Each structure stands twice: as C-alpha cells, then as structure tokens.
C-alpha cells in the first residue's frame, strides 16, 4: 500500500512529478480520464458499502425512540454472557473444521498428484470436487437433514439403530457440534483439495526428480520442496475459510437452529436472534458495529500476507 507509485504513463516529466503530486492530481491526460471514470463509480460504491456501518453506529447509540443513550447498547451487548458462548461456539467450530479440511484436502491432493497419472481421471475428480462447492448452503442443510434426522435420517438406518436406541445426531449437545461441523467438512474439503492440487501442479518437475534421484522420501519431498509452493495457497485457503466460518448460517439454521440450547449458536445465529427474534435492534446494532470493527481490524492485520495486489 505504501510503496511509491511507479509511473506507467510515458512522458519525461512524470519521474519528477511523482514525488510531489498526490494521487488525485492527474499527471497525464490519460490518468485524468482514468480518475474521471473510476472515482464517481467507486465513490458511490464505497458510500453504499460504508453507510450501513455508520448507520449501525448511529442506531447503536440511540434508543428505539431515537434518544441518545450513549454506550448503553454496547455495554448491554458486551455484558451479555451469551455473546461469549457464541464466540466460543464459533471458535470450537473453526477449530474442528479448519484443520480437518486443510489436512484432508492437502492429503487427498498429494495422493492424487502422486498416484493418479491419467488425465481423464484427474479431470473427472476435478469436476466431482466442484459439485459440493456449488451447492447452495440451504440445500446442503436439507441434504444433511436427511442424513442426521432421527427416525427418518439414513444414518441411523445404516448404523442399524432401532427407534429405541437412536443416536441423536442433531439434538444432543456435543454431538450436534460435530454433526454441523461434518457438513462444513463435507462441503469445503473439496475446495481445499482443488486449491492444493492446483498448487502442486506448479511445482517444477526437475526439482522433484532431482530429489528423488537423491533418494528423498515422500515426506522429505513434501516438506522441503512442495510445501514451499503451497505455503501462499495455504494462507489463501485459511483466509477464505475463516471468512466463511465467520458467516456460517444457512446450514446450521436448517439443521439445528443453533440448538440444542445454544450449542451450535454461532456468532451469525446469535446476532440473528438478538436482531430479529428479540427485535432488539439497539443491542444488535452495537453487536454489528463490534463485529464489523473486529473483522476490519483482523482483515487489516492479515491482508498483507495475502496475494492481494501482485501486479
């Protein structure tokens, strides 16, 4: 972000001008055109994107009747112990889902990369792996309702349970968390697989062959060669998956509705309950402000590790 601008426009004066002109002062006719095209549209979009944040702040410091109440809503929001239950549930979910998806996806990618040489099979796996990713979350919820539900769910048929001794996959506290997490793993492991597999294709043949000639084991080959190529992609996966874990809502809403109790009430479901079940828009707005601020801070913190602007 702070790197000095490199002139892309031709012209002898550009180099001299670059240190002094701020970004909104065009250095060439073409740049002026660029700014004129870009700024109105971009400014509009930024305003539309930022207004909700400002409005949430305004709403958070006022009561339902519009009176200024200072930080009351914030102290109510942050003083509510259920918030921390939701944060904890989200953290547990992330702790189950992220490592599992990354390890499984990476493992499968290595397996296919090393052992499947047929282009047709690789292409078939590529298409198959894309299927779970493109299914709407709400439909994924329906799919797993059919798997985990009591009586009708196919899992207890497969396990040979009787209706008297059923495992309550969705309604007993620790299990519900794992059931809900397993759905995430089902849907997103293929995503990790596809990224890791694509990354493995960028590893130069020569270095791998050289290592093999030297008698490197499969592990050494991974640890000292392939991992170097995968590291930026692992960060990317972590970034996208974390963003998704923070927004997880649909399939959980369909499967458990946050229950039993609040076992699977993740941050999104908690905010939903405060805002639209309890209609406590003051507290909900305070929560929304806190969440947006926290996520923005978090994004700023990790964004420099991202392959964001690579031109």
């Amino acid at each position, binding site marked *: 972000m702070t790197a000095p601008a490199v002139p892309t426009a031709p012209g002898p004066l550009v180099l001299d001008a670059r240190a002094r002109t701020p970004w909104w002062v065009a250095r060439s006719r073409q740049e002026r055109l660029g700014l004129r095209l870009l700024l109105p549209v971009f400014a509009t979009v930024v305003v539309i994107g930022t207004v909700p944040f400002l*409005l949430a702040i305004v709403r958070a410091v006022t009561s339902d009747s519009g009176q200024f109440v200072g930080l009351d809503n914030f102290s109510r929001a942050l003083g509510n112990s259920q918030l921390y239950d939701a944060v904890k549930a989200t953290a547990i979910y992330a702790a189950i889902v992220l490592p599992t998806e990354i390890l499984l996806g990476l493992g499968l990618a290595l397996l296919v990369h090393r052992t499947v040489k047929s282009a047709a099979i690789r292409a078939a796996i590529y298409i198959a792996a894309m299927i779970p990713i*493109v299914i709407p979350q709400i439909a994924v919820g329906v799919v797993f309702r059919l798997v985990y539900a009591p009586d009708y769910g196919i899992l207890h048929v497969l396990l040979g349970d009787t209706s008297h001794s059923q495992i309550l996959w969705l309604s007993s506290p620790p299990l519900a968390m794992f059931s809900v997490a397993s759905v995430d793993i089902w849907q997103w492991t293929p995503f990790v697989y596809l*990224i890791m597999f694509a990354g493995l294709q960028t590893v130069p043949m020569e270095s791998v062959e050289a290592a093999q000639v030297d008698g490197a084991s499969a592990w050494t080959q991974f640890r000292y060669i392939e991992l170097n190529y995968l590291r930026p992609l692992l960060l990317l996966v972590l970034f996208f998956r974390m963003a998704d874990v923070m927004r997880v809502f649909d399939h959980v809403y369909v499967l458990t509705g946050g229950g039993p109790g609040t076992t699977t009430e993740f941050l999104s479901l908690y905010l939903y309950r405060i805002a*639209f079940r309890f209609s406590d828009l003051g507290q909900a707005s305070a929560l929304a402000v806190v969440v947006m601020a926290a996520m923005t801070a978090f994004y700023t913190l990790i964004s420099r590790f991202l392959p964001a602007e690579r031109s």
Partner: protein
Amino acid sequence: MPRAAKRVLTTLILLLATAIFAFPLYYLIVTSLKDKAELFAPVQTLWPEAPTIDAYIRVLVDRNYSELLVNSIIAGVCATLLAIVVALAICYPITRLPVRRRLRAFVLNWALSLRFLPPIAIVIPYFTIVRWMGIYNNLLALILVYAIFNLPLSIWMIKGFLEEIPIEIEEAAMSDGATRFYAFRHVLLPLAQTGILAAAIIVFAFDWAEFLFAFILTATPQSMTFPVGVQGLVTQFEIIWNDMAAGGVIAILLPLGLMLLARRHVMTGLTFGVIREK
C-alpha cells in the same frame, strides 16, 4: 510397499472418498422420488420402491413455489447485470488507464475486505435502510444488496480477465482513429466476453444460492426467493421429507448446471483470481 499394493490402497481411498461425498446427494435424489407411503415405512430404503415425481409437482404447482423460482431468477439476473456493469466500470480504468498503483491497490483491497464482512452484521443496518426506503419485501432491495455483495468477486475476476488482454490491440485501434469508447466496445469487450460471461455465471449462481438476506428482507411469496421457500419446507412441514428433498434438488440443479458450464473459471472466481486454469 510394493507398487501393486499401493495402487489398490490409493484406489480404495479415492473410492471411499467418492462414496462419502456422493452418498448424501444420492440419498437426497432418492428421497425426492419416493411416494408418500414409503415415507411412513418403519425402515427407510436406499432406493425408491415406486419412483414418482409427485413431490416435485407438489412443490412447484401445489405450493406455487414456481413463483419463488421466478423471483430468484429476476433478482439474480438483475443483480448480476448490475454487479458486472459496475465491476467493468471500475476495472476498465484500473487496467487500461495509468491510474496510480496506490489507488488501484486501494480499490482492489477494499473489494477484498468486503468479502470478509459477515453478512449478518451488514443486514442489521440494511434492514433499517430498506424499510426506510420503503423497499422491504421488494425484490429491488435484494437486487441492490446482491449486487453490492458480489461486487468484490466481480471486480477481481474481471480485472484478471482484462489484464490478460494485451493493451496494444486497443492502442492499435485507437491509433487508427477509433475513439476510446469504440475501442472498448468493439475491441476489448469482444475479447473479454468469455471471461465476463464466466464471471456473470458465477455471480448469478451465488445470487441464486443466497439465503440470509432474502430471509430477512422479504416476507411474502411475492418477493421471497427459492432458498427461503426451501427453508420453509424444512421447519414447517418437517414430516414431508420428499417435498423437502425435491425442493433441495431444484435448488441445486441450476447452479450445478451453470457451474459445469463455467467449470474452467469457477476456482478462479472462488479464489479471486489466485488459481488459474491453463
């Protein structure tokens, strides 16, 4: 381990993985094809005894969910068009004209940061705005919100596609006397159209799948989208599993078909252009 044993083991692992991933979908389809009598059988079977499409007819005709399908398509198409046009308007200057690197990086970073905001935090203030604007329970609200929310992905994908097209082609046209707009319209757009179409398909599929905004910003079938309807089947009519499954299948079909069509670009879209297909 000998080679043959390794091969067998690999095949087994891959088959097992395929089975785990395919089975829930298989069972969804099977359930949607079962008739009512089978639903009340003491033990569920893994295949429909008497396959029927009754559940689909009940969902689409009796419950009139076809209306919701139409809503989903209208909201999706309009929001996609809006997102793509805005993304093009933003991407053209940053890829074709010499704006500062810093500004360019700011635009792209801002777009990426939007991807990180949880929708629920944003829908709370939007809920107020939408009601204040008088577009609560109106497809217009969804169109605007979907367009904004898919802008990051649209910007990043289209930026990637435009960058791949050498600027010299347009410069040649312009030095032959074409105006900048003519070069954009008749040189750049035709070259970029495959990419833009792929971006549009992916954005549409996301709009189609969106649940939370539609769930909160709409209230009646007049403006509800299909995923909201599917959710309604789950909670209100718990017992009618085959209708629920049929709803799920319908919700899946369109994005699945579209994504297969744009398969070469799906991963590019999902990773904001980091993964590229050759």
